[in-house]
């Protein structure tokens, strides 16, 4: 689905992502883990086009998208969430979802001013989808609240919902679980699995909760200090000495059954 080839990113200093290459296979759920500061979020930013590359290429479905702007990448079916929530703070929750959806007819100024009938149907569909999303994420009680007033966890849910509203082919989830109540998170996992299975939606997720990762992911990619450390099945990775050293530590509080 996505292939990252020799990507380098720098924020002006040394490369924080240095010559990383990997594939995200279509139709699968791939995990991206690694210690704090490894460059995972930066990798997502690079894939989605929010930071310029210092080297390398990124391909989406075989086509080079390196020079495309973020919105052009999104138009090709790439969606991402932000680790620190980036909600539309003055819009209500429902509006946040509607705004995230693609509404090409209604976003054309000419239509808006001179041909108003044209986007009614599109709006209706968008509204339905938004309402369903609210129900799915169990945030009905705040659906007309301004997004800026939501709690930390609610904002994370909003991030996920907006990404889904884009009807993408691939979604990059950046620590969607951090700060989400575990019971709800379990439900979200189920939905992700469902979307993956039924619609063949591709996911790549950054997560620190290994339980959650192992429940969802077929395979994980491990990054450390800006480089690719290894890639493999979750259990394989868990056993790897380098990964244990760089990532797990003693495992004292690991919530294993």
């Amino acid at each position, binding site marked *: 689905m996505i292939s990252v080839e020799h990507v380098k990113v720098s924020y002006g200093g040394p490369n924080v992502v240095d010559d990383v290459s990997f594939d995200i296979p279509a139709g699968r759920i791939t995990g991206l883990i690694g210690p704090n500061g490894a460059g995972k979020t930066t990798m997502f930013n690079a894939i*989605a*086009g*929010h930071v310029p590359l210092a080297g390398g290429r990124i391909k989406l479905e075989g086509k080079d998208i390196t020079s495309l*702007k*973020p*919105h052009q990448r*999104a*138009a090709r079916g790439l*969606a*991402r969430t*932000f680790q620190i929530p*980036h*909600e*539309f*703070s*003055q*819009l*209500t929750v*429902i*509006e*946040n979802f*509607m*705004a*995230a959806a*693609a*509404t090409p*007819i*209604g*976003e*054309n*100024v000419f239509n*808006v*001013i001179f041909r*108003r009938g044209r*986007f009614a149907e*599109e*709006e209706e569909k*968008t*509204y339905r989808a938004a309402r369903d999303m609210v129900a799915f994420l169990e945030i009905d009680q705040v659906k007309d609240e301004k997004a*800026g007033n939501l709690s930390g966890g609610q904002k994370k849910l909003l991030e996920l919902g*907006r990404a889904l*509203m*884009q009807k993408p082919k691939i979604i990059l989830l950046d620590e969607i679980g951090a700060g989400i109540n575990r019971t709800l998170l379990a439900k979200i996992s189920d939905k992700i699995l469902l979307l993956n299975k039924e619609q063949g939606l591709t996911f790549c997720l950054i997560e620190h909760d290994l339980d959650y990762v192992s429940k969802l992911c077929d395979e994980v990619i491990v990054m450390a200090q800006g480089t690719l450390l290894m890639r493999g099945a979750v259990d394989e990775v868990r056993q790897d000495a380098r990964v244990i050293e760089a990532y797990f530590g003693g495992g004292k509080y690991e919530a294993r059954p």
Partner: protein
Amino acid sequence: MEMTGLLFYLVSVLIAGGIYAVLCLALNVQWGMGGLFNAGIAGFFAVGAYASAIATTAVSAKHLGGFGLPIPFGLAAAMVVAGITGWAVAKICVGLKSDYLAMASVGIAEILRLVIVNESWLTNGSLGISGVPRPFGDLVHGRSADILYLAVVWTCVLGVYVLCQRLYVSPWGRTLRAIRDNEDSARAAGKDVDKFRLQTFVIGCAIMGLAGGLSAHYFKFLSPSATEPLLVTFLVWVMLMAGGSGNNKGAIAGALVIWFLWSATEIFTSRLPPEWITRSSYIRMLLVGLILQFVLQKFRSGLVPEKSPKIRSD
């Protein structure tokens, strides 16, 4: 104070208030919906005023002109020229973040003002353009012409209101507000942020140009003193904030209320005792400043606060 006097005072307040309402609606598109901090309103207003004046006046050796076009063409020219100016400005600096855009637009408006006072081949500089026609100026004279002009101005206000309202309730408007709140995530959701901003800025500037044109035809004479930033940029911002930014009705209400307060304070200060008479104008400014503080503190989100457009609920 006789009744006809009062009536005609009302007419003049409503004409000026209507022109301000157009400006205020334009600013609402840019700021209320798009979050673009345009602090150079006077510049685009001036461009529109001069465009319309030059297009409609008779030949003059003193400045460019002599097109003698009918007034509707003049107003259209005002919108087009101000829109193009806005487009050029937006091309350069619409990517700037809020307050920086404000600084840049103040700067650009100031440069436009200097061009207007200095390039006399184009504008006759500080001496101004006279003989700007009024609509139906040949048919109606005297005070009744004002009533006719009132109708012209408010037709424009209505048209602009309908336009702004359509923009506001549309997906386009929603996307704009989303961009205002968070640019990065709008980008991630596939919105071409720069394109939306550019459209917003241009639409706003074109409407400001229209207001400029309306005022040129009202004064029938155009000089740099018609585009004083204090009375254009500053006052319009006050009107929008007082009326309720993000709300088109609020924009109109703000324009009328603030203009009326601005104008009517003088009626009271000119009734001060004779010892104060030479100072009454300063007392009036003081009063305006204080009233403004009162409005800001008491009507926090404006007279008509921003509401999300109604989404059908079922």
